[in-house]
């Protein structure tokens, strides 16, 4: 069977839609479905975890964004909500759980403590930001952030997922290039973590030459 010029199939959106065919890029449909079914890890660290539970509660209802399936196992989750203070004793556990999550995986640093140490930054036992060991996608400030803020962070993450390129030459999400990302787990030796940060994901900010003894 051969097609002549007159019998060529009409591929205009109007006629394909009539025939029940939707044309879309694979990226678009993949990102759309992924961003609307983010499964967070049921993983609470401190005060922010209570607000995380509050967000899953009836009033704020995270299910509206397709993220209500809190999984206790890292093997089944896409999103790690680092909800609260990460202490030096807990940081190895957090990195290990991150390593156990399958790709694609995302991280929201929830609350001032997870971002930078927050009010406890001066403490001897508090990690000054989880982004020293694992890459963070969305930073969510607040102490603790309101449930609305967490929903906004989730929407920001959804926007990020919708814009990612998973095919072709310009892949934006490293998960689709390198396979599963596994970062070295720090060891608590003495009174500090070894190494103090992971140079792959974080470098210390440049010192301000105008300040003689700038703080860390």
């Amino acid at each position, binding site marked *: 069977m051969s097609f002549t010029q007159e019998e060529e199939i009409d591929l205009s959106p109007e006629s394909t839609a009539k025939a029940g065919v939707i044309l879309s890029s694979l990226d678009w449909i993949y990102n759309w479905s992924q961003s609307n079914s983010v499964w967070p890890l*049921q*993983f*609470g*660290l*401190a*005060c922010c*975890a*209570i*607000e995380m*539970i*509050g967000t899953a*509660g*009836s*009033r704020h209802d995270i299910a509206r964004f397709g993220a209500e399936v809190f999984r*206790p196992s890292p093997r089944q989750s896409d999103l790690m909500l680092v909800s*609260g*203070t990460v*202490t030096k*004793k*807990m940081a190895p*556990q957090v990195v290990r*759980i991150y390593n156990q999550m399958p790709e694609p995986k995302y991280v929201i640093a929830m609350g001032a403590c997870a971002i930078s140490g927050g*009010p*406890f930054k*001066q*403490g*001897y*036992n*508090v990690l000054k930001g989880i982004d020293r060991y694992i890459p963070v996608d969305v930073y969510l400030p607040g*102490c*603790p952030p*309101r449930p609305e803020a967490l929903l906004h962070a989730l929407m920001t993450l959804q926007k990020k997922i919708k814009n990612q390129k998973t095919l072709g030459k310009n892949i934006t999400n490293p998960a689709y290039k390198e396979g599963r990302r596994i970062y070295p787990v720090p060891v608590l030796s003495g009174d500090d973590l070894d190494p103090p940060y992971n140079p792959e994901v974080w470098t210390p900010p440049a010192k301000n030459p105008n300040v003689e003894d700038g703080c860390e």
Partner: protein
Amino acid sequence: MSTETMPARGFNLSKDDLGADILEIAMGPHHPSTHGVFRMDLKLDGETVVDLKPIFGYLHRNHEKLAEDIPYPGSMPFTDRLDYLCGMTNNWAYALSLEKMLEVEVPERAQYIRIICAELTRLVNHCLLIGFFINDLGALGTPLLYALREREKILDLFETLSGARMMVNYMRFGGVRCDLPDGWLEECKRIVDKFPAFLDEYETLLNENEIVITRSQNVGVLTAEEATNFSITGPMLRASGVNYDLRKVDKYGIYDRFDFKVPLGAHGDCYDRFMIRMLEMRESIKILNQAMKDLPDGDIIGKVPRVFKPAAGTEVYGRIESPKGELGFYLVADGSTNPYRFKVRPPSFINLTALRHMCIGHKVADAVIILGSIDIVLGEVDR
């Protein structure tokens, strides 16, 4: 294995029946039922707990050390983060300690506002605890959603009052930070009036529930003598039948003006601990109704010095009945604006010491609900 040596019930198999060894498992710090970053190292014979070692420190945030480097009022926001479910009572305990040290008078109206806030906090804490406890029993979700629904209403009150939902930072030495906004009391009355209806619903669902009764009665029994020896306080002590409530014993604030009862348990098991909280919420509503009726007009903060400089060598221990038990702050002054020593006596930490004693001989699944019935918050346990 012949039928004669088979134990009567399959799940009572011991290691001797199977020729197996003691199984050691680490539960936590990431475990959905450990109420935060708590770790239990369990030794199991089959499914029975033969030994338990609690390991904590995963949330040690140096509260006590940080407080030594900042002036007295600066520690007030940090107390919110100790037991992050009950910011108001933590504030009150710290304010009470320093007021005792400096002998500051608290005005009448501030005392009433403090009591209203503290009892609202008790409602939040207890209904959330019951939600988590039933969650641990296996009823995933629904009872907790009921509790969260009620919690949101009370958090709205806190938000209009202080600007924050959880970290209220509301009490001040000698009073409270700001007066009640217009219409706050009416809204509070409306919520408190509706609360018993929620409790009725909750009690109908849970109190005589077959599963709740079978799972929690005679589990994790703590006798009155053991409870006193472990220096347990709060609802857990009263569930064992010891009549000790600081609101009645110390009569701090103006608790002696209110008519309320102290519910007592008889068996000291998980079911009693669960029921005590249900009954305490009813008593809290009684106190709230009386306090809202008698709320006087007047100042909200007393005469306080501009700078807090207690004399060197002064020591003080102030304590209140927080929803979890006796919360105390021990302060030592060295004559400067900062405390020389800032010690917290956290109720959940001390209550947790009885965990091993209560768990041994029970199944792993029971260890989870025993932990749930203690009502711990890791921010307070590790400090």
